[in-house]
């Protein structure tokens, strides 16, 4: 592989402008990954990574240009009506459910429908309605032998 380079393109959700960073003169090695870094710009909506390289095709006497791309779309919820989202977190052996707004603000005293499915009792689940505390969280405990937890919040601007 010759002339290997990586192009990083970031898209801003404010002005839809694309910024590009090119890292070239890379020497790919089959034993280790290529590591590149970049500064995350504000208002990032999409990150596209493209790696390009050149290979000499001896039998055809040509040089082939090859590339691979990967795209990461960030969930900005910019065009969504609901300004809240459910989060699941494990902290010191216990699981927590969080209902937070777009800027991380807690949604207090909101009713959440939670459903639990056991790992050995098939086709059966238990539902319970619980309210969030002043941090917007519900403590779920260690959830031993629970294979599935689902949540449902019917908020003022739609469910989540």
């Amino acid at each position, binding site marked *: 592989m010759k002339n290997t380079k*990586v192009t990083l393109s970031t898209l801003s959700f404010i002005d839809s402008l694309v910024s590009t960073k090119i890292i070239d003169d890379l020497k790919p090695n089959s034993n280790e990954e290529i590591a590149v870094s970049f500064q995350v710009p504000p208002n990032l909506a999409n990150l596209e990574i493209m790696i390009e*390289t050149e290979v000499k095709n001896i039998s055809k006497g040509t040089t082939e240009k090859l590339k691979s791309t990967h795209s990461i779309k960030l969930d900005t919820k910019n065009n969504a009506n609901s300004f809240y989202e459910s989060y699941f977190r494990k902290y010191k052996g216990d699981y927590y459910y969080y209902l937070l707004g777009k800027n991380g603000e807690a949604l207090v005293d909101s009713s959440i429908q939670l459903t639990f499915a056991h790992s050995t009792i098939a086709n059966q689940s238990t539902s319970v309605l619980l309210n969030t505390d002043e941090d917007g969280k519900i403590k779920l405990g260690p959830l031993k032998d629970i294979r599935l937890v689902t949540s449902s919040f019917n908020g003022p601007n739609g469910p989540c």
Partner: protein
Amino acid sequence: MILTLLERYLKNKFHFELDEENKDSFTHHQRREQLIEMYKASENRPQSLKSALLLEILENGIKTNIFDKNVFIEYLKNPLKNWYMNKKYQNTRELNDNVWAQYTNNIQNRKNGQINRNQDRKLYKRYLEEFYESNPEENFDEFKEFFDKNFLVDLLEEFEYLSGKELKKEKTDLKRFETLSNKVLIDLLECNQDVFKTDERVKIVANIKNVSSLHIKIFEFNSENYYRKNLAPFRSNVDLDGLVTAFQKEYKYDKLPQQKFREVFEFEELDNRVGLFVIEFISNGYSSRAVIKKGTLSLIFQSTVKGQICYILDENQRICQGENTGLWYQNIYHKANEKNGKIIIPYAKIETTDKVILVNERFAQLSEFRRRSESYTFDASYIVNHESLLMGKEADILINPILKVNDRK
């Protein structure tokens, strides 16, 4: 609906056995085991399927020299066709509806799965003759409930006559037996192998009749020259004129002209030899030929950046190496590395499949080889920790590029 389910059942359960790609990769004995397994698994399936499988086991028996009376009788209870059967069968509906042929196509012994009168007669006669030869006191009583009486009597009379017994004169067609008596027979059996290992003794079994003196000539062919000239599989009808016999033998017999007997010929002259041999049996202007291949070669290959790397393997799956090892492909000789047997064939501009002649020492074998063109594919896997994508912070991305030539790294 039922057929669709059965088709799915057959294809799922016996995918490996029924697959076209595996059609020629099994020995007759392996195929027999598979057929028996399939027959056992079809216990609760329609009788026409069971009978079709039994017929295949019977046909396989001729090639493996296994004449199982139980299988024969089981088939006769429900034959696909009623010809040569007695009146009881003539009034019943025939089973053969040709439905199974499309599913069992790749395991059928008969070409295109043909069910015809002559082939069925040949099969019945072959089995009955074997049963008679294994027990000369056989009177076929146990088959009377299945076969037409005249069919059985005629065959029994013929077998008795050919075994040297006196004719029961009051009922026989003398002209038929006179013709039979004059007939010279050197019949090489279907169960004979045509490929032998180098250290294996070559044995050929033949049915012989009306032969007082049998000449056997063994011709050795330069297989490399033959394949280079013809680029086609070796055929038994090859012109032997001008060829010098490698070995010659003569056998004398003092049997009655009508008497048919079985002889096993062993060829110790071919022990530990590799090559392509034609063994010709000649007597009274009649001749039969067997083409014997001693030793086998096969080719394995893989794509690399340099080209396709090939190795020639011998019958014991060992890599052939040495001064006289290599292959002919498109009239170009590619010599193997004398130390490791490696042969590098560069990629072609356009992918082609052609015959290849594998050569090791004095032996050659025809095979096929697909010379690939150089084709690169490129892909990469990416690792990005989403939590690291925080505004103003430095984020790391790991990229693992994967370059493949002809789908290999």
